[in-house]
């Protein structure tokens, strides 16, 4: 244990001393800050997309309604657009309007203030044959849908009024909206952020595991390659047992990874408590009431140990990262598969594929973590837990033999030689 801890501390200190560690520590907060600042700046500095709305209907009665609907939508702060006058006199033929506005729509010509025209909405026809032509190459942020709904409402109203329905009744009828309430079957009460949090937290925890494995195992791999190429491994092997070296390294690098995550987590918790205390309390309640945090921790530790052992063993056979890449290919493919299915676990946690993948050891930690919110049956939790423990034990045992064989090996690795060394232990 003494030697294991010394190796772990050396690993930890070696990485904490590097510039890369501090850059990693600052990267996320800085990146997030930059993204938020940039999007805020873009929002503040960029005017809303400009639209020309042309009403070619006989009474041109749609234009005021459309303008009012777009203004209402803008006032709600969502998907803002600005209706501007046409920069050129337009023909009455709807089909010719696109050609007339082409220089502005394509960006060759600019509106006043050097703004680009984002699109043109042409309303034409009459009675029950009113049509909407949308001329644009850029997303109109939902404006065309707003316009379409407004036109439809007016068309329905005209039809009903023509049929003799009282206009006030039509207005009242069209204003009717159902009251939609989300309920949670788990709490038998109204759905809230709290009831949806487990799913989101499960997804986040699975992604966290994935990123911990990716970064931690990558650090381990490079560290072992460096030790192998600088011939330190043989000295270590003469001074400590293989499990001491293997677990010392894994523990040290886990310390590095969790230090970074810990700092990020602490900063996030403080910020959340200051700016969104209700959500912070909700997250705390989800994690700590019902032992979800231990559930996550179990799969996190198992997953990390499994992949870290594999990466460490691979590193012991390689003196360059190029050599490692050839051996890492299959592992990287394995690691991409859970990412594809993680979003499924959030949206459709009852998908049979998730059940099946939960029993495939390389994917078990990710799948079971992401499925936490859907309350998987207890027999599945227990079964996959036992499976993970057995798999981790087996992988660590094989990795230990491989590590010893790899550390003392020289020259290129061939598959036959590798298997022979694993069987012989050297």
């Amino acid at each position, binding site marked *: 244990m003494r*030697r294991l801890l010394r190796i772990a501390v050396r690993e930890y200190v070696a990485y904490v001393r590097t510039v890369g560690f501090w850059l990693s520590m600052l990267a996320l907060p800085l990146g997030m800050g930059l993204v938020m600042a940039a999007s805020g700046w873009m929002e503040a500095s960029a005017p809303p997309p400009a639209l020309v709305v042309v009403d070619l209907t006989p009474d041109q009665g749609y234009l005021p309604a459309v303008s009012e609907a777009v203004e209402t939508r803008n006032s709600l702060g969502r998907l803002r657009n600005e209706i501007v006058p046409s920069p050129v006199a337009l023909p009455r033929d709807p089909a010719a309007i696109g050609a007339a506005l082409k220089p502005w729509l394509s960006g060759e010509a600019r509106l006043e203030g050097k703004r680009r025209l984002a699109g043109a909405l042409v309303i034409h026809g009459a009675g029950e044959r009113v049509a909407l032509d949308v001329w644009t190459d850029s997303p109109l942020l939902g404006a065309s849908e707003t316009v379409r709904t407004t036109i439809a409402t007016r068309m329905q109203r005209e039809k009903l009024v023509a049929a003799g329905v009282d206009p006030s009744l039509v207005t009242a009828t069209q204003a009717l909206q159902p009251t939609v309430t989300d309920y949670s079957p788990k709490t038998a009460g109204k759905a809230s952020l709290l009831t949806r949090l487990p799913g989101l937290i499960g997804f986040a925890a699975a992604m966290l595991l994935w990123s911990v494995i990716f970064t931690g195992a990558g650090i381990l791999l490079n560290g072992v390659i460096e030790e192998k190429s*600088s*011939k330190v491994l043989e000295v270590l092997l*003469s*001074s*400590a047992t293989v499990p001491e070296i293997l677990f010392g390294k894994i523990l040290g690098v886990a310390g590095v990874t969790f230090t970074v995550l810990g700092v990020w987590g602490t900063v996030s918790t403080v910020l959340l408590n200051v700016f969104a205390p209700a959500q912070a309390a909700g997250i705390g309640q989800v994690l700590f009431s019902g032992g979800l945090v231990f559930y996550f921790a179990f799969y996190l530790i198992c997953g990390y140990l499994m992949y870290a052992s594999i990466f460490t063993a691979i590193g012991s056979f390689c003196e360059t990262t190029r050599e490692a890449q050839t051996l890492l290919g299959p592992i990287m493919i394995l690691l991409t598969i859970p990412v594809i299915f993680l979003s499924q676990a959030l949206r459709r946690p009852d998908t049979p594929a998730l059940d099946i993948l939960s029993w495939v050891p390389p994917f078990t930690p990710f799948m079971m973590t992401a499925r936490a919110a859907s309350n998987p049956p207890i027999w599945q939790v227990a079964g996959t837990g036992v499976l993970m423990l057995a798999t981790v034990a087996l992988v660590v045992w094989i990795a230990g033999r491989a590590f010893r064989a790899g550390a003392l090996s020289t020259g290129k690795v061939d598959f036959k030689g590798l298997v*022979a060394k694993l069987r012989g232990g050297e």
Partner: protein
Amino acid sequence: MQAALELERVTKRYGAFTAVDDLSFSARQGRILGFLGPNGAGKTSTLRMVLGLSEPTSGRLSVLGAPDGRSVRDRIGFLPEERGLYRRMTPVEAIVFLAGLKGLPAGEARKRARAMLEQQGLGEAQNRQIRQLSKGMAQKVQLIAAIAHEPELVILDEPFSGLDPVNQQALEAMIRGLAERGATVVFSTHVMQHAERLCEHVVLLAKGRKAFDGTVSEAKARAPRALVLEGSLEAADAGALPGVAEVTSQPLDSGHVRHSCALKPGASGQEALKAAFAQGLDIQRFELREPSLHDAFIVLTGESLDEEAAA
């Protein structure tokens, strides 16, 4: 005296290849044992078995009373053939870390590291990163790291390789110091001069098999002495001298020829020389040369050694 290290009929095979074949020898406590042989003779494979880094295919080992080095690793110091340290560590940090793995407390390890580095002329370099040190300096640091915990058994695999003559001398002094302190030193080398200067006891290895096990003087006694004659005499004249078994001739720039006359066992070089002068052979220079360990190795194994020019 009790043996610190004992091998009994040890064999190591890698598939069909036999790296070490039926090897037996022992190293007595407090002595320096030279483990000699050309590259590929099986020295490193043997030392790895001693350390417990690999297991023998057959045979028995006793390392400080244990079946191999694993259970007594804290009492062993090891310098591998291919050397390396963490490049971003300082010498003191590297020594403290490696000695710490051997059970030496950090404070004591730091104190010893500084003292030993000073003693080896590395006081100025103790706080520089190892990547900034010369190869010789780094090698000294690694040796200090291997012995800072004052091991009872020190195993050095080709410790002199890559060192310049000045550093080789310094290393020889360090090895002598270890033995004076009471440690058993086993070092492998393919450079016989170091073994001649340092060891009483040598084990010669060739193609995985033991070719000789005994003292340096016993090994040398197996090789013939030679009478070197330089002048314009013919090889046939040299070969006809009494007691001469074999002549090897080499022309010199001066126009003369150097004849190395291997003497028969028990033959006197003086008799041959007397006869040469009596016959009036033209001899400009003569020398009665005692055999070296290298000569002994050639006689004992039938192989030549790829010795380093620097040795």
